[in-house]
């Protein structure tokens, strides 16, 4: 059972400081120009945003968490959203500077910013590079005009192509986000589109199957029968094709939806999947950190409303969200379900260190053996790996093997 920690955060850390450890920092910029019909993220559309006020609040909240989780070493920063490419570059620079001041990095950390490919935003790419961003993740989503329109995107294919070129010109490390398994999409069409994207030579691709989430415009449209997504067989064919095409191109999947050339994997996200610690700041952001002596890990989450968050930070130096103690089982479950998403699977020694219990403790031995027999996973001495066949049904597999 988890229970909220009722004490204010700064008291939690006042006498028990976190031992120095690597930490990732996520910064959530919750604003978008418009809401995409498939998106269920914490995003908000506002006429005007007081960027200065928000920047000041981010810095304040960073200081607050730095007090709580002091002595750690920053290994990566990620500006996500929302649309962080709507942030002034100066704000990005100030936040990076503050993070590195609070959690000094031994090596240069990976600093990623998510950007939309509209011409206005692309015009800021160079400024972000200047501000310290060293990896750009471009929300291309598609290179087909009709698809971009269907997905409610603010750019067209020509803009996307220009932005992709520009990103690759400015940044050494670039990712392109794409959405497939769109209504009516065939394998032939998707193969053409995917190969075109691969032709740009970026080192990293995030290729997401379109998922209809509750509460989105697509969800309502699907209920009304106006939106029909590919059936299971087609979705599977598209997924398999994606694996084959990217592997051939030298960017195999290292996670369910993420593909990279060797060494180009996103360190920030790997930290999530490996069960590492991270700080999340900004409206609706989540964090995981712990290790106050023998104390358990904490899960932090901040208010989703930007205005509420801003007000709270103004008054209390942080968004005054929830700080929940994670039980050892919860923690182990999280690391398990995140770790098995990786093609490299779970390193048992690392799991035991991060979760405090051996992985076998939360697995049903019988179900795991059955899954191994069915070639859905491989249970080695030192690691557990879900096979490509098992990864297609990972959600269900997890329900099966968890004890």
């Amino acid at each position, binding site marked *: 059972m988890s229970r909220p920690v009722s004490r204010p955060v700064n008291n939690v850390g006042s006498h028990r400081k976190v031992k120095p450890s690597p930490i990732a920092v996520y910064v959530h910029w919750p604003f978008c120009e418009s809401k995409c019909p498939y998106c269920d993220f914490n995003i908000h559309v506002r006429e005007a945003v007081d960027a200065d006020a928000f920047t000041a609040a981010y810095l304040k909240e960073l200081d607050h968490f730095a007090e709580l989780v002091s002595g750690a070493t920053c290994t990566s920063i990620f500006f996500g959203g929302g649309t962080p490419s709507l942030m002034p570059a100066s704000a990005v620079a100030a936040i990076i500077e503050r993070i590195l001041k609070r959690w000094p990095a031994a090596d240069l950390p990976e600093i990623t910013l998510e950007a939309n490919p509209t011409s206005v935003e692309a015009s800021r790419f160079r400024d972000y590079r200047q501000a310290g961003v060293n990896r750009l993740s471009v929300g291309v989503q598609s290179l087909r005009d009709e698809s971009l329109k269907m997905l409610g995107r603010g750019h067209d294919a020509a803009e996307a192509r220009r932005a992709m070129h520009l990103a690759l010109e400015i940044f050494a490390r670039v990712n392109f986000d794409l959405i497939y398994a769109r209504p009516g999409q065939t394998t032939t069409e998707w193969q053409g589109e995917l190969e075109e994207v691969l032709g740009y030579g970026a080192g990293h691709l995030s290729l997401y199957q379109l*998922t209809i989430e509750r509460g989105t415009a697509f969800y309502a449209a699907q209920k009304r029968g106006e939106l029909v997504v590919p059936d*299971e067989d087609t979705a599977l064919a598209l997924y398999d094709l994606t694996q084959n095409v990217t592997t051939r191109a030298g960017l195999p999947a290292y996670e369910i939806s993420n593909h990279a050339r060797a060494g180009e994997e996103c360190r920030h996200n790997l930290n999530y999947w490996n069960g590492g610690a991270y700080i999340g700041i900004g409206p609706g952001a989540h964090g995981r950190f712990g290790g106050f002596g023998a104390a358990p890990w904490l899960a932090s989450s901040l208010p989703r409303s930007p205005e509420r968050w801003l007000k709270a930070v103004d008054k209390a130096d942080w968004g005054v969200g929830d700080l929940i103690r994670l039980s050892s089982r919860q923690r182990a*479950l999280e690391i398990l379900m995140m770790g098995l998403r990786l093609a490299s699977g779970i390193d048992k020694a690392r799991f035991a260190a991060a979760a405090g219990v051996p992985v076998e403790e939360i697995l049903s031995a019988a179900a795991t053996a059955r*899954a191994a027999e*069915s070639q859905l996973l491989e249970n080695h001495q030192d690691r557990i790996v879900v096979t490509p066949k098992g990864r*297609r049904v990972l959600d*269900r597999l997890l329900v099966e093997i968890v004890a």
Partner: protein
Amino acid sequence: MPAQKHIRNFAIIAHIDHGKSTLADRLIEACGGLSKREMKAQVLDSMDIERERGITIKAQTVRLDYQAKDGESYALNLIDTPGHVDFSYEVNRSLAACEGSLLVVDASQGVEAQTLANVYQALENNHEIITVLNKIDLPAAEPQRVRRQIEDVIGLDAADAIEVSAKTGQGIDRILEALVERLPAPAGKTEAPLRALLVDSWYDAYLGIVILVRVVDGYLKKGMKISMMAAGTQHLVEQVGVFRPKPQTVGQLGPGEVGFFTAAIKEVAQTRVGDTVTEAKRPTAEALPGFKPAQAVVFCGLFPVDADDYNHLRESLQRLRLNDASFTYQAETSAALGVGFRCGFLGMLHLEIIRERLQREFDLDLITTAPSVIYQIEMTNGQTIELHNPADMPEAVKIVQISEPWIDATILVPDEYLGAILKLCQDRRGRQQQLTYAGRRAMLVYHLPLNEVVYDFYDRLKSVSSGYASFDYTHHGYEPGDLVKLKILVNGEPVDALSMLVHRQHAASRGRVLCKRLKDLIPRMLFKIPIQAAIGGKIIARETIAALRKDVTAKCYGGDVTRKRKLLEKQKAGKKRMRTFGKVEIPNDAFVAALKMGED
């Protein structure tokens, strides 16, 4: 103690919703049994389930002190009878305790099947019947038409039927007068040894086991040692009393009186409805006629969803049996469902009531298996065995013949639904005995196998007649039938809790329906699951649940962890509501849902 000439004992016969309980309340109120403040709607139905369903499960009595127009004071004993076909024996015994009945018919609805069955029982008990047309205040009331119908269908003279409204109180005084004038007084022998009819019994938290009796001859006194003739037990009477409707002790109960006694009896099972109570040292020579031991006719398995609840279930069944000796239970082990109990009931409603009380009063989560009847199996070795559980069926080669119980069902239905009802009865292997009309209502008598009725016949009947059909039945005895055991295999493993006996002609279609149902009820797994129906070694129907091929979250980052973990925990908890067969999980509710044949 009133003299016999000042006693009238009566029951009320009415269909559900025809206003029996409201009428009883009015009569109690008119005789000052309870103050207005104490009148809770429907005084006599005391269990929650009784109130909710508008039915009476236990018989209850109330003594009304009535000052009649002739200037004399009368004790009117109302015996409220159970109101459902499952309890027809109990109804019959309650009626045997009275000299007359009020036949209450809704003046806007007319006679229903259940009313009819009970009127016949009352006539068999030589009752004087006073007809009452209730709900006369409703605009839809048609007293003339309903009078004619009572004459046509039941054959009673309805000319002097009393028109009342239990709701407004109109006509209540006329009923009270009619009870005094038209019902015969009891004619018991005061000098004879005690002879009293055991009408019902129950457990009361304050009084212990309370036994409701109608004294026929002699006297029942406090301190008397009595003997129960059928049960063969003796007890010392501790208290004697009457209900008005609150219990009130009296010194003794004389001939013709209705009341209760307590005698430090431990279990209701020792008190049998219909038994004769007599004095131990001066017993009557002859027991009252009509006693029958309670006989369960419908059986099903009750299994705890959580195996850890087994002991709790056993204790709960024990507790319930304290108050209702008419159901039986014995431990049962199912390969599919683990340990539980095979329980026997008087009928489907009785089954539902017990199950509901277990869930509600004892907070148990239960899996109920398909209801079954008792089959008689003639074996090749000359023995005849009773089969209560299809899972226990002997091998086909050892069986000479299987017989199944049949019933005579009486169904009353407006004629526009007659076609649908005939089809339903035909589909259930029914044989039509009689079809008559009374106005626009048809009365059907059908000969039906009980095993076709126990599943969902009543639900189907209600659904195809938009709720207008009414139904009652009597047991008819056993007949040989071409019955086979239909087995269900999930992923090659037989699921004993889903096996059933069916008529050979119906086996294929029922097997198909079952397989299809299960296909929808069992969640897809990581491998394909064949579902088969078989008779012996022969597969007669098959469906396949396709393997789950794609089920993975596309995006899962730092902000998604909590939500995904909670979903996983929820799915994991959901697995607890399933039973594992080999590699397959079957949701608990599938066992009952699969057997609802109706909609296909």
